[in-house]
């Protein structure tokens, strides 16, 4: 009987609590609930690098005690419930059910990403082999055509549909395809090797998927191992001609100066931005964060909202 009474009481309490409205005032003394993606997430890697906490990208033990792991949608819906939560999502997911935070005083908008003022983002870069350094002329012509394709509205749409932000393009593939006669012939059996950053893999595969059908059905081989390999496997003399060599490499960061030595400026460029936004509940009075604030939240130095708001 006691048990039964307990169960009834619990149900009653649950129903009652559903009816009470959330308070309008924000209680700053509450703890910050930290939401994060799991260690395999590219968004997490981009976020942690962006706030200067790169070590935490793949290491849960560095994060504040008691963090919550959710996927992209999970973090979005949690921010509609949890007044005291903070999380991050890619800019393409942001909508008006949550409150996106400005980063270092700059609002997270598409325009601010493209004009390079919004800081919590990383560039998606490509790098190719030197002219004449390909296994065949067909492969070289295909790679040149692919690079040209990256600058078209067709590619921009694909990039945007896969969660990244394409650069401003004006021409469509149909406008420029005549400049690349190789795409008109049958390229069945020709293999072009793609590699580099695994964060870009999804976008890169979507791009090549669409491009092979436009370019004589060549085979796109994807082997993504990390941004560092974008340069090494296309340009590093010690590695580029081994079995892991690539024709096109992607990096989810700017190339370092050491990686640009001896590389023609026409051999690399940017294809997209990946912008990440820190988000909170709409009731949260916070509007702006700095990289340092976010790092202190995620490592646990800031435990309550008053640490941040005062």
């Amino acid at each position, binding site marked *: 009987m006691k048990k039964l009474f307990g169960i009834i009481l619990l149900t009653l309490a649950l129903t009652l609590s559903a009816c009470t409205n959330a308070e309008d005032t924000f209680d700053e003394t509450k703890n910050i609930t930290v939401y994060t993606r799991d*260690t395999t997430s590219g968004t997490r890697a981009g976020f942690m690098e962006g706030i200067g906490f790169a070590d935490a990208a793949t290491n849960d033990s560095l994060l504040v005690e008691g963090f919550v792991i959710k996927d992209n949608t999970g973090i979005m819906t949690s921010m509609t419930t949890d007044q005291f939560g903070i999380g991050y999502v890619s800019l393409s997911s942001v909508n008006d059910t949550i409150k996106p935070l400005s980063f270092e005083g700059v609002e997270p908008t598409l325009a601010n990403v493209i004009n390079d003022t919004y800081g919590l983002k990383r560039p998606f870069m490509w790098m190719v082999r030197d002219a004449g350094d390909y296994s065949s002329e067909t492969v070289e012509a295909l790679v040149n055509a692919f690079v040209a394709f990256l600058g078209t509205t067709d590619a921009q749409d694909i990039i945007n549909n896969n969660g990244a932000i394409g650069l401003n393009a004006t021409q469509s593939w149909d406008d420029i395809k005549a400049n690349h006669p190789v795409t008109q012939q049958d390229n069945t059996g020709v293999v072009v090797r793609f590699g580099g950053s695994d964060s870009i893999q999804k976008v890169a595969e979507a791009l090549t998927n669409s491009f092979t059908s436009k370019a004589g059905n060549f085979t796109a081989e994807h082997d993504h191992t990390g941004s560092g390999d974008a340069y090494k496997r296309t340009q590093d003399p010690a590695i580029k001609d081994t079995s892991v060599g690539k024709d096109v490499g992607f990096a989810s960061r700017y190339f370092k100066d050491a990686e640009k030595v001896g590389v023609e400026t026409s051999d690399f460029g940017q294809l997209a931005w990946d912008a990440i936004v820190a988000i909170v509940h709409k009731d949260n009075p916070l509007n702006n964060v700095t990289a340092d604030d976010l790092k202190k939240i995620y490592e646990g130095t800031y435990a309550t909202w008053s640490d941040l708001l005062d």
Partner: protein
Amino acid sequence: MQHVEIPVIKQHKEKRIKDRFVKIILLSFTLLSSSFIFIVAGTILVKGVTPFITNNNGLGSVSFIPFLTGDTWLIGESFHSNLYSIGFIIASTLMIALLSLVVSFPIGVLTALFIAKVAPKKLANILRTVIELLASIPSIIYGLFGAGIILNLVYNFSAAIGYQSKGGNSMLASILVLAIMTIPTITSISEVAIRSVDKNLEEGSLALGASKTQTHFKVVLFAAKSGIFTSAILGIGRALGEATAVSLVAGGRRSGYSFDLLDTTSTLTTIMLEGMKETIGLDYDIRFSVGIVLIVVIILTNIILNFVKRKVGNVNVK
């Protein structure tokens, strides 16, 4: 005479060949379907044992005892560490499954009693269809319901009692989602068990002067207890094995034994699911090891419950 018999014998022969042919076909299908269990179990076993017996591409082998007892999923950087452990997850998995049964079992059995004995025939038929429909709803739908409604409820409930919940992601939310999911299973099986109780027992009880309520609770439920117990076993099996729905409300706890109903948690299934699609190497293989542990946990639970069931005994059930 002979020229009459020959076609008969021939017919017999043909029939026998056909019979044998069908038998062979049936046998081969049976062999095929039953061999899947060995293929599946074999693959999981081989994959799941790999982290313990190889050096995992230079990371070193995972040690077994700390793996089973430790309180942190992974110490250090993923892809660069072999310090996995799931002790705290085994504990929370068992606790969640048991508590979800505590919620769903009484509700499920009493619903079954109502449908089988109390409700008018028409209503009973409608309710039976509803329960069957509920049982066939995919778990992801329950998960979405949990993420949309139950998380909110738990969050507000916690706030009402002065506890700061992490967006409702908690053991309680997992328990409630699983309870809702297992009620249809428990109800439909218990209902069959209750309906198959010998009418004579019931009539005997009524003839002795017991009221209907007394008869239902003291005779019918008692007589159907074996079937009702089976429903509990299947219910807990579903609770232990559910991944999708729970992973949407559990919160992905990564360290620390925790028996706090309102704090985040993880189960063996959610830890397998999270990141599964994106990961490689040891971080991938270790999920198969978790799978083996899950299978062992389910088998052990079943053995224990079946043992209890036998102890509880059986009454004249048709």
